[in-house]
């Protein structure tokens, strides 16, 4: 059993530390945890402001990443005419 599996199995015993919560955050947010493990995570969150703050900032980092790199729908990029020509010539 690797370290992550050991940490996950501790959730079943109700032994939820900050390490266990942060290790399993991906599965928690993807709804991949068993209901028992999910409940254990939520019990820890109810009494750990530091982990609540970590969870919030993790989700905000994801949203910021999308906003920073995602192309706005109303402003599609345009290709330079010479690039269009080069691409079309490549099929000849």
């Amino acid at each position, binding site marked *: 059993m690797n370290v992550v599996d050991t940490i996950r199995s501790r959730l079943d015993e109700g032994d939820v530390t900050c390490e266990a919560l942060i290790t399993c955050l*991906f599965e928690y947010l993807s709804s991949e945890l068993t209901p028992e493990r999910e409940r254990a995570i939520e019990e820890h969150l109810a009494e750990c402001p530091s982990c609540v703050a970590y969870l919030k*900032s993790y989700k905000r980092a994801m949203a910021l*990443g*999308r906003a*920073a790199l995602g192309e706005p*729908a109303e402003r599609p990029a345009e*290709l330079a005419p010479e690039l*269009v020509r080069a691409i079309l010539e490549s099929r000849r």
Partner: protein
Amino acid sequence: MKPPAYARPAVPPDDEGAFLAALRAGEERAYERLVVDYGGRMLAVARRILRSEDDARDALQEAYLLAFRALPRFEGHARISTWLHRIVVNAALMKIRGRKARPEEPIEPLLPTFLDDGHSAVCYSDWDVPADEMLERAETRAMVRAAIDELPESYRTVLVLRDIEELDTAEAAELLGVTANAVKIRLHRARQALRELIDRRLKASSA
């Protein structure tokens, strides 16, 4: 694979059959449309995956070359935009693989650390600036782009494929030639590292 929400189709769904027929017939105007109408979004995808503009343009040209060759075998079951999206993602990943392998910076210094009893080694606090306000600021977006570019390449790639290009785990795993579990682990670490890099920048700017 569905294209990201922002990748609106250039050709309306009802017209795709006729458009595809025109391409198969070798009509010059249809090919021009395939490049002009779809190329901008494809270049944007290549830019997000690759950090260099030259590499992104190369990947785009390579993607179109692959698409032109594959066109006779494209049966039109997927949308044209979806099909092209997958091709350009592939071309960009091939570009990364073709680069001279450089040792990657370790990601561990950007991951949370814990005390022996499993408590976080630091006490986290949420960011002061409201989320909406952060998203609207151009300077925040530039700061976040810089933070993403600071991620080690293999983590940055997974983050872009999953969280920005919206590939699912199985698709990302297939394209990267790794297991689905490896994608999940890398993505979680990439998100944690991005959180840390943004946190450091916000603290530095408010100090």
